[in-house]
């Protein structure tokens, strides 16, 4: 039988032309946590973040919720952003919150590509999707 199972589910909504909203959930046998964060598309800066601890291991864990605000102003385009998130949100707060924020960050370009490809195929169903993705560049 399975002795440990973890699922992560990350969704991305484009709430306006400038902002993508990530919703990240991480559920496993031990923990259950959720992150919502808004990211500015132009430079990857985290504009807003909130988190909820639904299942955790000890009474100190919820003190990590306010630590999440450290992420506001950090950019997903900055080199080493993931290490910075793990240091500031993970070590000083909660590693599992950091894991969700990092997974949302890893989805940043994928979400932009996915949106752009979807829109492009709506206009041109016969589009060479591989070629489109190969030539895709993030907006600056």
């Amino acid at each position: 039988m399975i002795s440990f199972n973890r699922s992560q589910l990350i969704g991305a909504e484009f709430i306006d032309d400038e902002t993508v909203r990530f919703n990240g959930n991480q559920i496993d046998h031990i923990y259950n946590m959720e992150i919502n964060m808004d990211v500015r598309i132009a430079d990857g800066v985290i504009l807003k973040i909130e988190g909820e601890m639904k299942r955790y291991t000890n009474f100190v864990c919820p003190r990590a919720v306010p630590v999440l605000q450290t992420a506001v102003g950090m950019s997903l385009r900055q080199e080493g952003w993931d290490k910075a998130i793990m240091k500031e949100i993970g070590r000083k707060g909660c590693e599992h919150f950091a894991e969700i924020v990092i997974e949302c960050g890893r989805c940043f370009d994928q979400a932009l590509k996915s949106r752009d490809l979807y829109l492009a195929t709506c206009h041109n169903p016969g589009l060479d999707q591989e070629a489109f993705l190969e030539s895709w560049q993030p907006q600056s």
Partner: protein
Amino acid sequence: MVVKFLRNKVVEVEPRKDGTLGVSWRLTDDLLKAEVNLVVQLPAMEIIEATADLGRFVPKGLEDASEIMEDVEGVTIGAGLRKIVRGLLGGPEGSSLLSEAVLECCNAVILHFTRPGLEIGEALENDEERLEAVRAMVKSSPRLVRSCISFQDDSPIMKGLNL
């Protein structure tokens, strides 16, 4: 609002009849499909088998993912793991996908071993006993010290432990 992107990822640890642990890591999103499977030998915690299979839009350089993954066979889950795995699977663009998958598999193995201890703590009678159980866990696992807010020096859990 309709989401424009959805990623679903799962990692599972399964003890097998031969005493090894099977670890399955799978990811599916709008653009990528990926699967990594490890077999971990106990008690050494050595990765003895590692395979990968990618699909949909495969990142450049990862067309032969399973061949690349063979490099982590022989690696032990322990000190320096992140540096070792990232070093072995570094190189071609997009290879962080595989190294992070392996690291997430290894983290799941650690949590597989963490779970029984937490369950013992939960079964204790009162808050004081549960606090002592957490303190005992930190004492026996020095890697936990300052790893998160619960185990920072100013945490009530760490009070008087001098770790």
